[in-house]
């Protein structure tokens, strides 16, 4: 495990060192951005609409019972911004894009394509890892903004149409506007950027480490997704703590 962590840190440092070549690899970055956005936007919107809705559904009746119905907007708004938006989107992207990254790079490793790159003196880090890491680090925060907005709307719809809650859109959004600050959205963006880096590095590392045949590729994909999610959830606690301290 410690060897893997060391290798992943090294991979991250080497990828950062390859940043001056970003302009050369810009086409691949755009391809990856399109792949991540196109493959995930609809799913992200559906997922966050329901997360916002569930959040309102779970908290709404309890708050109404205690005469706090006007505060539901703030609770849903803040939860989506600071926690559920970044974490749930990162888990979704780890499953959809992290797995694809590990599978593609893993199959290139198994079928000697990475060896072929090396013989051409083309760094696999520059050619494969850099565009993916940059693309996911740009795409995930953007997806999170979508997710937050759609989650808010999901919560508002449940509040308006559920007879046990029954608060108006304006009450919901007025409270949301009072409670949620711009720094809360930045908080979610910072988290999602860190999680994007985790997904990119873990998935590319697993892909590059792939040995054996199709079974090896399958193993790498599973490890990439599981390890990414575990690291995201662990880091989430420490990041929340850190950002909380910074924002004090």
């Amino acid at each position, binding site marked *: 495990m410690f060897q893997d962590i060391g290798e992943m840190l090294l991979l991250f440092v080497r990828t950062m060192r390859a940043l001056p070549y970003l302009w*050369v690899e810009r086409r691949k970055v755009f391809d990856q951005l399109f792949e991540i956005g196109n493959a995930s936007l609809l799913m992200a919107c559906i997922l966050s609409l329901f997360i916002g809705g569930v959040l309102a559904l779970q908290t709404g009746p309890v708050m109404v019972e205690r005469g706090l119905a006007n505060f539901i907007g703030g609770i849903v708004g803040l939860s989506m911004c600071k926690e559920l938006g970044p974490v749930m989107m990162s888990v979704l992207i780890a499953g959809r894009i992290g797995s694809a990254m590990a599978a*593609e790079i893993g*199959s*290139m490793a198994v*079928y*000697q*394509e990475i*060896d*072929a790159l*090396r*013989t*051409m*003196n*083309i760094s696999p880090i520059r*050619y494969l890892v850099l565009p993916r890491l940059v693309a996911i680090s740009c795409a995930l925060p953007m997806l999170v903004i979508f997710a937050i907005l759609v989650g808010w709307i999901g919560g508002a719809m449940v509040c308006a149409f559920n007879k046990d809650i029954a608060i108006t859109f304006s009450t919901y959004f007025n409270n949301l506007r009072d409670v949620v600050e711009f720094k809360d959205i930045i908080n979610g963006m910072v988290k999602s950027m860190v999680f994007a880096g985790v997904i990119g590095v873990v998935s590319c590392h697993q892909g590059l480490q792939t040995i054996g045949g199709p079974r090896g590729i399958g193993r790498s994909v599973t490890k990439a997704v599981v390890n990414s999610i575990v690291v995201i959830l662990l880091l989430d606690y420490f990041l929340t703590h850190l950002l909380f301290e910074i924002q004090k």
Partner: protein
Amino acid sequence: MSDATTARQSVQVQIRGLCKKFYDAEVLHGVDLNIEAGEIFVIMGPSGSGKSVLLKHIIGLEKPDKGEILIEGEPIQGEGVLEKYRLAMVFQSGALFNSLSVGDNVGLYLREHQLKSEEEIERIVAEKLELVGLKDAEDRSKMPSELSGGMKKRVALARALAMDPQLILYDEPTSELDPVISVTIGEEILNLQKRVHVTSIVVTHDRDLAFGIADHMALIHDGRIVFAGTPAQLRAQKDPAIQEFLKAEMKLKNPKETL
């Protein structure tokens, strides 16, 4: 050495006491070889004797446990050596990039290193593909999954040629190919040596190809070089193991038909 001075200049390769172990299995036991600039050097040997591992060491894909590989007297693992000399390899499987078209595969080296303009790259890609018998423009837009085994190998050769290499390594260049294409590949290896004087190292089982193209040959067995010399010297060897390898034929006890 600048690009201008290294252009079309073949390189000398020296292998000194090369040892390699994978876990408990010792694959190479102190291999020593000298490959002169501009020659075609063929390495033969039975399956599992360490030929491909040796080839991977020569191009820097594997690090030796002991010993060294010198390109023009400089250790291959040394700083900047792989940037200084243009080394190319034609993999046994072709190792084409499955997500790129044939044309993009062949032009990848030039594009990634930004060595030529886009028009020039297109011209070089067409020229190299024509050299290996793929003249049609529509071949360039095909994906590797649409190609036969033989075509993949020819594209891999074109990709190596696009690098204008000083040393080219071939891993079983005629395996999976029909006899007619095998002859074409053999002739292309010879033509390349005549035209650009490139140093070629060929690993093969194909005795006809080996004796047809080699300036010097080596026979490897269980990770040890058991012979190194000219094809004529190899033929003259009395060692029964060598003779058995050279003269083995497909003779079944009860063949259904004979040619």
